[in-house]
């Protein structure tokens, strides 16, 4: 009886393993045949593309931010290859966050020098500098709040702090500082694609060149109203006194309404204007031996203390200067 039972069990086991074996074989062969068919079909229907496009695309960040004006990094790569073939250069085609020299090298060409850019928030109307006069209870969209009222502090050109720019940034380079209520640009992540500048309903964000040694000077205000009006709502807004304009040795400052504007193409980042501004509206970023220019500490004092310090010098400056607030590039 026992032997019979064991025999039966063995028979069942054999049957099962037989079934298992056959199933595996059939499926395996089926899979193999289909794989071969798929391979040939893929080869037959393959789209022939210039391999240079792939190489050019590899040089680009791949974030598809649209800062170049094209639909994505691949579209820019295609345009570069096309223009290179037609005109022999890639002038006019640029990714704001990439050195186009790399792309040019892939195509066997040269390109203009890379000028890295960064987004700059031209408003310092923080909760401290421009105290809130009203509560806001509406949808959290700057574009909508802009139609409803001037802003918590009353400045009609100031930052609304609801973060449309933050939501649009593809590189996670913006976030709203909880204490000041203003957006802060992370210089390590920002490539200067310009999406935030287009999104801001008040045009507060501007894409400016990073500047030599990452130094840049800009007027941190976007309000073109008369000085008396600006003072009512914000303690650090530009009043249009034109002291900076008179001080600038390079004629880089122009007045737009009652607002001073520093032309980045002419500005040599000497920082003199920032010293004379009576409201502290001009920010000189990454200058050595300067008070840290963080919005929270902005008061009525000028941004940079008048101290003797080396002017724009040849290379030696790099080694002697060890500032506390330079951001490593």
């Amino acid at each position: 009886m026992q032997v019979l039972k064991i025999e039966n069990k063995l028979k069942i086991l054999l049957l099962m393993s037989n079934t298992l074996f056959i199933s595996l074989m059939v499926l395996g062969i089926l899979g193999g045949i289909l794989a071969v068919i798929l391979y040939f079909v893929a080869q037959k229907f393959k789209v022939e593309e210039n391999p240079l496009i792939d190489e050019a695309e590899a040089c680009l960040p791949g974030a598809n931010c649209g800062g170049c004006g094209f639909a994505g990094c691949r579209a820019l790569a295609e345009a570069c290859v096309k223009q290179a073939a037609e005109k022999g250069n890639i002038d006019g085609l640029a990714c704001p966050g990439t050195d186009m020299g790399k792309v040019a090298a892939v195509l066997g060409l040269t390109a203009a020098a890379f000028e890295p850019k960064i987004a700059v928030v031209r408003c310092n109307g923080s909760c401290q500098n421009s105290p809130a006069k009203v509560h806001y209870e509406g949808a959290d969209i700057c574009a909508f709040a802009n139609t409803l009222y001037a802003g918590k502090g009353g400045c009609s050109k100031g930052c609304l702090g609801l973060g449309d720019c933050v939501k649009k940034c593809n590189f996670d380079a913006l976030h709203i500082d909880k204490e000041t209520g203003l957006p802060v640009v992370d210089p390590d992540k920002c490539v200067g694609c310009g999406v935030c500048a287009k999104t801001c309903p008040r045009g507060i964000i501007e894409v400016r060149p990073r500047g030599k040694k990452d130094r840049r000077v800009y007027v941190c205000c976007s309000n073109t109203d008369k000085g008396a009006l600006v003072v009512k709502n914000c303690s650090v807004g530009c009043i249009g006194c034109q002291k900076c304009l008179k001080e600038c040795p390079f004629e880089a400052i122009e007045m737009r309404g009652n607002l001073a504007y520093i032309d980045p193409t002419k500005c040599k980042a000497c920082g003199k204007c920032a010293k004379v501004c009576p409201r502290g509206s001009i920010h000189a970023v990454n200058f050595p031996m300067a008070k840290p220019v963080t919005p929270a500490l902005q008061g009525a004092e000028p941004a940079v203390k008048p101290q003797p310090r080396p002017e724009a010098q040849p290379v030696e400056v790099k080694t002697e200067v060890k500032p506390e607030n330079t951001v490593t590039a």
Partner: protein
Amino acid sequence: MNKYTISGSPHVHSTENTKKIMYRVLLALVPALLVAIYYFGWYALRLTIVSVGACMLTEWLIQKYLIKGPLTINDGSAALTGLLLAFNVPANLPIWMVIVGAVVAIGIGKMAFGGLGKNPFNPALVGRVFMLVSFPTAMTTWPKATPIFDKGFFADAVTGPTPLGLLKEAGVGSLAEAGDLQFLDMVLGNRGGAFGEVCTAALLLGAIYLICRRVIEVFTPLSILLTVYVFTGICHLINPEMYISPQYHLVYGGLILGAFFMATDMVTSPMTIRGKLLFGFGVGVITVVIRLWGAYPEGVSFAILIMNALTPLINKAFKPKVFGVVKPSKK
């Protein structure tokens, strides 16, 4: 100086809110609950308490520890799911099974999709169908209805077949034998079945309250009942021996509970009147098909779940007529 508030218009609001709607539906189900306790005693009451408690606890745990978001157990929707889930099960179901059902209903049926308003399927029905498929025997052993004044509040239930069960297994003739053809009994709840679905009269009372208070609209339930009546009526006319007459189909099983309380769940049903009518028609057809020719004796749960899946398509197809837009006539 006062700090004024700036907000977009309108600056006034009606007094309606989600909480009030949910609590009104709970109130409408109280008569049915009372009748259920009358017929099934302590078992019905404890299952209700456990189900409601489990649903609310599950939602609270998920919101507090998993999602770490705002707590919404006070809005009454979890309690409502719990009550409806309890209404769908036999009174003698073991407690741990209904807890499993509650966890599935809230956890998978509602919270996994994002919480209130985001679920495509009715959570109570998700829980019920899950229990039906996982615990088939327990979920299909129905106790008989015996008034508590006869047998006592805590007495054990005596099981027996439900009218639909009899219909499925033994045909029309069996019902006459079992003496279950008393229509009044069906309406008042003196029959076997899930304790929430037996008393048609109490449920209708609650439903009328909801319709008068404008919590639910009458289109979906009416469409369901009409479809079922007409469909089974046609079948009955063709073959009276095989198919029972239509008015019984209206009161048997969970059709009234499903039509007025489950199919009208706002989150999972269409938004426009035409959509609701089509939704009701679909539920009716599928219910009858399952009842007459399907494997299960009762088809309302499955019918509603299937139509829930079609709701987004129905919403897309049936949009309200926009003021001032004239559809160009086909030439």
